[in-house]
Structure formats: C-alpha cells, structure tokens
C-alpha cells in the first residue's frame, strides 16, 4: 500500500546524535523523521509505517543560526507532585533555563517520501489496509493532522501534499553520494534499553533508499 507525500519547508534540522549540544543537521531527512511526519498526519495502533525511499528534490544547503534552547527536561514525578499538590511549583521557566546554542540547519528543503504500512497485532477486527489507506489519503488531501508535522525540530514546520504527478519524483543530482552512517530509527523492542540503529546512507541520483537498511545486529 504505497503512499507518496511531498513535503517542503524553509528550514530543517535533523540533528546528528554526535552533534547535539551544538546541533548539526544530517545532509538529508532521516527515515525516522519521515516516519514522524507521516504519523503526524495519520497513525493508528493497528498499523506501522515503513519508509521505502526519500527523494531529495532541492540541493543540500546549510546555514548557521543561533537559537534559544531550554536545557532541562521535566520529570514525570514532578508533574505528578504538581497534580496532587497544586501549590507545589516544579515547572520549567524558560526565561531562567534558557541557553543559546548554535545550530547548523538545512535551508529550503523539499522531499518526496515514499512509504507503505504494515498491519500490527493491535488492529481491531474491523480494521483493514484499504481503510487505513483511504483515511490517510483523505486526511493528507484535506491537510489534516494530529499535530503539526515538523522537520526534525518543532521550529521548522512541514508543508505537505500528496505527490500527484504521474511520473516519479526526480532527485536534485545525478550520480552517487555517500552520506556515511545515519540514524535509521530507534529500537523500541526493549523498553528499558531503547537503542538507536544506524544505516549506511547513500544517495543514488538524489534518492535515499531505505528499504534494505543494513542494520547490523
């Protein structure tokens, strides 16, 4: 059940894990970021998105910006405390907790995500692939989403539309380009030890093929 979604935006930041404190983006969108975009539009416990390929339509361009980031994360326990005892104040105040960090972000990006989904064991009896597909298509056509999809970080919103062209999308360049190891997705199978998985990312005439990621065991 393949879908094709064209996404574009002014900026994008697919943070490399090794450059996270002072962020540096990957050259192109990661499969997990693509999954996030699709899930923002439509997701259901009975399905699981699989990204097949990402076509890079615009040349890869970087720019450097400084942004304010908050350095703390809120803890679940503090929230519970606050709920039980509203007088208690454990909120994060951004004005006190702010840090200025440099980010190397992508500029003017446009991708076409090709993906399919698989049914999971959580589907209810009345669920079926055709139903999910038409739900996704309907939502995407109307521009509906659960939360606004974004390119890597929430500051960089995604514009999207279904890829309507008869022909396949064409990448921005000819030839091969090796992008090194890239985050494929997180391995959630062990909830106590969630591990990142990496794959060798190669652009073939602007197309990142993610169907057979060599995820090493």
């Amino acid at each position, binding site marked *: 059940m393949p879908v094709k979604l064209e996404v574009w935006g002014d900026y994008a930041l697919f943070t490399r894990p*090794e450059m996270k404190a002072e962020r540096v983006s990957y050259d192109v969108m990661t499969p997990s970021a693509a999954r996030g975009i699709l899930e923002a539009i439509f997701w259901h416990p009975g399905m699981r998105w699989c990204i097949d390929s990402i076509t890079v339509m615009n040349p890869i361009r970087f720019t450097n910006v400084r942004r304010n980031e908050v*350095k703390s994360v809120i803890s679940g326990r503090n929230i519970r405390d606050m709920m039980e005892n509203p007088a208690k104040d454990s909120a994060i105040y951004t004005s006190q907790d702010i840090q200025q960090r440099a980010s190397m972000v992508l500029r003017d990006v446009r991708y076409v995500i090709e993906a399919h989904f698989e049914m999971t064991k959580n589907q209810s009896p009345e669920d079926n692939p055709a139903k999910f597909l038409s739900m996704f298509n309907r939502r995407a056509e109307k521009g509906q989403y659960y939360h606004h999809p974004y390119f890597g970080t929430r500051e960089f919103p995604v514009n999207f539309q279904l890829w309507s062209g008869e022909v396949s999308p064409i990448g921005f360049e000819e030839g091969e380009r090796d992008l090194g190891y890239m985050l494929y997705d997180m391995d959630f199978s062990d909830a106590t030890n969630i*591990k990142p998985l990496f794959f060798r990312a190669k652009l073939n005439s602007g197309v990142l093929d993610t169907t057979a990621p060599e995820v090493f065991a």
Partner: protein
Amino acid sequence: MIEALIRLYEQLVKQGKAPKYGYGQENVPFGLDIDAQGRVSDVHQFGETTKNGKYRYMLEVPAHAIRTAGVKANFLCDNSAYMFAVDTDGASAKARKRFDAAAQLHEEILKTSDDLDARAVANFFAAEPQGSQIEQLITEKFGDTAWKNALSANFVLCIDGKPLSTSSVLQELWDTYFSGNDSIDASGGKKAPDTMQSIVSGRQVLPAATHPNIRGVQGAQSSGAALISFNAPAYLSYGKEQDLNAPMSKYEAFAYTTALNTLLKDEQYRRVINKGSLTILCWSESAEPEYPRVMFTASTMSSDADVSQEKVISIVKALSQGHPVDYEDAKLKPTEPFYVLGLAPNAARLSVSFFYKDTFGHLLSNVNQHYEDTAIERPGFDKHEVVSVRSLLQQTVVQRPGKYVEALDKVAADLMQSILAGKRYSASLLDKVEIRIRAEHEINRAKAAIIKAFYLRSPNSGCPKEVLQMTINKDSTNIPYSMGRLFAVYEGLQSAANPGINTTIRDRYFTNACRMPAVVFPLLVDLGTKHLGKLKTKPGLATYYNQQIADLMSRIGEQFPSRLTLAEQGSFQLGYYFQTQERYKKTNKDNAATDQMVAAEEGANNE
C-alpha cells in the same frame, strides 16, 4: 565528518605524525633509571629549556587518563606524586594515595609477565616510594632549584637511559590492557550497557562514555574542549547518558580526537580567522600538508604568505581547470578529496560552523570564482591583484589608526564560507559596508569589490549586470549609476575650481545624494554652475566638465529620483567609484598601463 577524521588519523599514524592508539604525546623532562630490583640508580634530564626555564621534551608514552578530581594513575610515565609519592606539599598523604593507585595499576598490568624489564618496573612499585633517594640524586646532579622544578613534572621509567615506554614487551602489555579495558571504561562504574551500534562504522561496539578533549582551538578553554558532549538533560535521548548518546567505540573516539588535536597543533593545517572567533582546519585524504597550505594561502590571500599573489593565482587557475600542479615537494592533484572544517569555540565546548567535503580542484574553483567576482579596477598604488580577506573584513568595522578592529564573528565565518563553497555573500557583509560608507563618505577598492561581488551573486534589478564590471561602463544608461558618476564629476569640478578646499561636497552631500537624489542634486547642479564660473581662466577645463555633465544629465533625464533602494545605492556607489578612478588615472599620467595611457591622452585632449 567523524568518519573522515578517523581515516585522517590512520593516515597520520602511517606518516608518523600522530601517536598510535593508546599512546599520547606528553612533556616528559625526566627519566628515572632503575635496576632489576626496581631501585633508582640514576636520573636523566631530557630536552631543552624553554623561554621560561622549564624543560620540555615531548615523548610518546602510554595515553594519559583525563584527570578531573579523582585519582587515576598512568602507565610507566607520570608526575612525581604518582611515581614516588612526593608532590609540592612534600611527602603528603594525598601523594601517597596516588602512588598506591599507580602501584595497583602496574601490578594489574604486569602480573602476568616474567619479562626482566616488566619485573623491574613491578619491583619499583612494589617497594616503598623512593622519593628521598630521587631528591638526593636530582639535587646532586642538577642543583638545588632543580628539585623544586621537578615536582609535579612528568617522569618516565628508564633502563640504561632508554625510556621503557619504547620497550616492545611493555608496549604489548599496555596494548592488551588498554583495549581490554574498553568494557570497564564504557560502564563508567554504572550499570554496564551492552554493545551498541557505532555511529561511524555501523558495527556493534562497546561505546565509550567520554571522549578525549580537544586542545588548541583558540578562544576555547586551554585545558581542552569537547566536540561531542551532552551537558544537560535536554540533549539526552531515551535515558542514555553522556557519549552513549552518540555511540562510538573507544578506538573511534581516540582516533577522531587525536586527528583533530594533531591538526590543531600544526600551523600547516590550521588557520585562525578574526582573532580566534573561528578556527579553520583543512586536510586532504592523503594528509599531505601542501594541500591545506595552498588552500589557506589561496582563500585568505593574507599578505604574510611567503609566496607571491601571482604564483598563488596561477596555481589556483591550473588546479580549478583540472590540471595537476607541482608545489614544493608535492604533486597536487585536483581530484584529491579535501575537507574543510570550521570550529567555533564556546568555553568547554566546540561547535561546528561549517564542514565541506569536496575535491580539491572544485573547492579551488570556488576560490577562483571569488577572485573573479571581487576583481575590480584598482588604484595605481595598490599592488595586490586580489583583495585579501582581511582587508575585505576591515571594511565592515570602524578603523582607527594604528589599531586593528575585528569584524563580527558571523560576518567573518560567512565570508569564508562564501569563498570556499561559492555561496552568495551574506547580506550582513553588504549591510555593514553600507553603514561604513554612510559614515565615511568614501568608497575604496575593497568596498566597491564587496558591492560588486554581492550583486553578482545575488542578482537584483536595482543593480544590474551592466554596472557590475571590472572597469567603468561608459555606455551604461542606468540612472543611479550615471548619478554616481555625475557626483564624482561634480566633486572633480569643485576641486578644480577651489584647489585645496577643506570640506568638499562629498563630505557634505554624499550620503544624501545616494539616498535621496531629488533633494540633493538640484543643489549640486546649482553649485556646479558656480564652480564652472570660477574656471573662466581655464576655458578648456570648463568645457571638459560641461561636456561630461551634459552627457550624464542626458542619461538621467528630467527628474532625479526621489529615493534609491539599497541595490540602486550600490549601483550609485559603483558609478562613483569608477568615475573617481578615472579622475585619478588622469592625474597619474606617468602610469605605465596602456589603457590608462589612453585615458590620460583623452583627458589631455579635452583640456
């Protein structure tokens, strides 16, 4: 990027420029000779004194641990406290604890070996610390002050004056220990994680919890800064701590940091732009130093380079057209993969400003494009064919005589990127230059070059291509351009009419003529008539100016525009610059250049 650095490290090790895995360069001024029983028999002093009277001798020794507050011993080579339990406070309890830690470490590494050297070292640490004997030896041999200086300096254990760190048996023992230690190090005392997939090789590795520091980036902490670090909870993901967020084996972490440290130590691979706000590192796949040297000289065109501009330009031209070039000892290939990394210091951290990976030839063709875009007619006294980065940057700040003011970090970083990557010049560069023009009422070569290059790469109908030439375009009917030229003519007329005048129309009206011509130009026309009147004694000159004014006026038309956009102001300024250069040409009649001769003759005929 990390991957490229690791490849570079392996290349550097092959060339003997970087220490092997598990070793590091340390300053070791003293050697302790021991006998088979581990007794100290002699003390050697290595190396030469530096300016401040300290001994300096760089030696490759087993890698030193990063010490913050805890006690961590090193193998074979360490400071006085770890080696013989004496620190600057004398034989204190703290120093004794350190010695004990060292003894424990050596015991662990050496217990399996029955090699003679290994036994000697083991005996040295098994015995009581020999601080007093060593003090006696040093004082006898090198005088009273030597002992005081030696405290807290590094000592290496030797046999017959030969450092044991060079012994192959001990090296082998250390290597096994060091790589076998990976799992201990990775757990960092906490719950041991299992293997994770490495971010650079994709293989399953034991991730290192911390990476070595990077030293030598100007403006960062001198003790070293981290490129990869996670210092606040918001940067962690899924409960992973420290560098487990970017899983990398201990070897990979060692390799990339050592590669960076080696480059940062070597002037040939490193340049600091703008007083340390940006450190640029360059290297080629082959790690030969000639590649970065050519790249630096070519991209910055700084005047302290030992090669002439003409030579650099010819090298750049040849390589960007795909021809190999012989430079010093190396044959430079245009197809060589080349890397450029910009690092910005941020106290204990480093941030990446930019990273480019391309072939050497292609990067140089970007540099060549920069030469062409900034190329502009220059006054006779200016001997440089290409404007240097430094003088381009100086146009963005207030200059005080005898004092060099730094440009903004961002402007400098952006300019370097435009040169190397062939990107557009940043708007902030142009903006800063426009501010300086407004304040100084002057347009020199570098300013005109920036305006021209900016609009060449960011086309704007307000400043069309016909004015973005290397020399004056006398056929252009572009209105702002013609007004700029007209202004220069009026200025020339004024100085001809009132030689040696203090305040000229440029000082008074330049900024407003450029921004709101309709307000200022009628005034200038009026003034011009008066100045022409003063030239009655020189009718030839008066006619010359009259003709020029009439010619330019006819291009501008009846009405002066009320306002000019920023781009049109750029066009105005270029017109002014070129016309002014024309005037100087006329006065420098003895200039040898042919075109200038022609111009000079024309001027003479008109008079």
